[in-house]
């Protein structure tokens, strides 16, 4: 028993004081610091609350996602950034206990309104996941799946074009062009993730959501993906959740900092990292916790 006594418990997560409920802490955080709105937003989140059963995970978030821009969402584990990201293409619909209130719009149309079909929405708002998850099919089939699903191609030659173009845009074509029939799962982790990005691009989405796309990758693969994100910015609106502040600084133009389900601060990435206005943001990016 003395074994346990020798090492004091090192709790890296910020302790939630038991006397205060999460609601009280969130209320004490105050309003979001910085500019949540942009001109001509692609997607717009207004006053969104998310609940898992009775537990509230997101508290009144306002945020815009602009065209041709990468916005990164950072914050400690469990701060709701992934939850918010998954609200943007209604992936949370698959969780029965999850409830979303507030407004999220894509090109001005509410995505949670009755006439919005989640299937169509997900074709317009693509998603790349934390763990590379190619289908256990050939590389070709992986990329061709989306276009085939939505009938984007007229014939086989069309489909071939889409596949090659998507792989090329994802910067993986040169590596796999001679083995398109190999299983997608036979690739290395970094290649798999780029294949997943190619798969997402193949559906010609307007927005790409990335949920910690590099967390399972080594630095070289990460560098390649970051380069790719930068190129993709030309054509898409991109929202990326990341745990790496360096990554946020490298790839994004705007950064949003979340804490316990509350959007604490949002602004230009340069400003946030050099001159954070909220104390929590400063603590986080200087590595004092998180």
């Amino acid at each position, binding site marked *: 028993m*003395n*074994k346990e*006594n*020798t090492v004091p418990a090192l709790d890296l997560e910020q302790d939630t004081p038991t006397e205060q409920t999460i609601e009280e802490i969130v209320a004490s955080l105050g309003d979001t610091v910085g500019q949540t709105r942009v001109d001509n937003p692609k997607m717009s989140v207004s006053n969104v609350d998310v609940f898992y059963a009775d537990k509230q995970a997101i508290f009144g978030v306002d945020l815009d996602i602009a065209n041709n821009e990468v916005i990164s969402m950072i914050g400690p584990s469990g701060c709701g950034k992934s939850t918010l990201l998954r609200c943007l*293409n209604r*992936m949370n619909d*698959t969780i*029965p206990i999850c409830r979303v209130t507030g407004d999220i719009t894509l090109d001005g149309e509410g995505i949670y309104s009755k006439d919005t079909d989640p*299937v*169509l*929405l*997900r*074709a317009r708002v*693509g*998603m790349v*996941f934390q*763990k590379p*998850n*190619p*289908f*256990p*099919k050939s590389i070709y089939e992986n990329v061709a*799946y*989306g276009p085939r*699903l*939505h009938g984007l191609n007229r014939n086989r030659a069309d489909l071939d074009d889409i596949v090659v173009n998507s792989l090329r845009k994802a910067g993986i074509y040169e590596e796999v062009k001679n083995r398109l029939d190999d*299983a997608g*799962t*036979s690739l290395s982790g970094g290649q798999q993730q780029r294949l*997943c990005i190619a*798969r*997402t691009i193949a*559906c010609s989405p307007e927005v790409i959501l990335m949920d910690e796309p590099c967390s399972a990758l080594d630095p070289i693969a990460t560098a390649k993906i970051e380069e790719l994100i930068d190129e993709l910015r030309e054509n898409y609106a991109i929202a990326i959740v990341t745990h790496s502040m360096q990554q946020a600084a490298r790839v994004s133009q705007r950064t949003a900092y979340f804490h316990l389900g509350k959007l604490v601060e949002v602004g230009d990435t340069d400003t946030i990292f050099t001159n954070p206005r909220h104390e929590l943001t400063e603590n986080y990016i200087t590595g004092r916790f998180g």
Partner: protein
Amino acid sequence: MNNDSLESTSEAIPPETTMVSDTTEKVRKSLGRRYAREKRFKLFGVIAITASLSFLAVLIISITIRGLPAFKQTFLNLDVTLDADTLDLGENPDQDALRKANYNGAIKNSLLELFPDVKKRKEKKALYKFVSNGGQYDLQAKVMADPTLIGQTINVWLPVGDDASGYLRGHIDTSVPEKKRRFKNNQITWIEELRADNKVQTKFNRTFFSRGDSREPEMAGIKGSLFGSILTLMVTLVLSFPIAVATAIYLEEFAPKNRWTDIIEVNINNLAAVPSIVFGLLGLAIFINFFNLPRSAPIVGGLVLSLMTLPTIIISARAALKSVPPSIRDAALGLGASNLQVVFHHVLPLAMPGILTGTIIGMAQALGETAPLLMIGMVAFIVDVPNALTDPATVLPVQIFQWADLPEKGFVEKTSAAIMVLLGVLIAMNAIAVLLRRKFERKW
């Protein structure tokens, strides 16, 4: 014990002075014990596997030794004179008359010709038993195919009766006093004479695979029950597989999680544990008495067995669907696939190997099931080979059950042989399952 000793040593030394070298020493001390434990565990495993394999070997060897003779049949060579008088045939007999003709008389005459000394009624009767009762059907078939044989003497091989063939295979102990023996001394003399004349021969038993059940062991075949089993299993598979997979998909992928689905789930699990004879009673009450489906029919058997197999397949299919990683669902959903497309394009193909395993387990269970089929009349003595789902039929395990009950020596062999056929069908089914699984399995 081990933990105690470890703790007592660690308490003896204050934690502050615990050093790396000390840890090494402790680990080294415990290593031997840890490896010994591992070795012991492996040994238990090997013992368990050896024991189960040897039991299996004993089972298979004993059944094979007992059952193999059933695949051979003893025949007796006879010159049968087919004159119209003996056969009770008039002028220009039609097919019906040919069917009803007295072939037995002709066989008896030819036996008497071989042993002219046999005069007494009792002795004659003993002699007649040399040829199986089924011999007349062989003759009948020959004559009906070619009526010109009437009036001629033909040389035929006819199946030997049960007692004689038992003797020829050494099943009859001649040291037993004659009174207690079914096969008497005079019969032994005659059959030895025939054997010396090369008139007795053992050939492959085609009857066993080409005929249905019979009261005579030498005429009894497995074909009726084998076909009955195949028809019954076909019904079971066609009904239970789609229903079970659809149920599993609905419950796992689409159904809301509420009290109703919980109740359904609990009930499915309970159904899997219901004794199979209860399903037989249910089948009797509903399918036969209420829907008036025919008794002893493979369709009813299949319906009853599907009820029994459904929960097995549903449970394994749900487990297989559950084991498909959520990342695949996310990937497909994220690309804009509808729920149904996610299931049919990705989840179901990935779950297929598991579903097939469950299905084969369920089907194997159904193949070996006897009790519920007794309740719906599939235990009847049925000679004909079933051709349709509504024909009266029996199935392999019931046939084994029936034959095991019969006293004739020939049926003892037949029972083991039928078990061999049943095991053969099982192995074939499993082989198909393995092949299918390999076909559907994908590398991650």
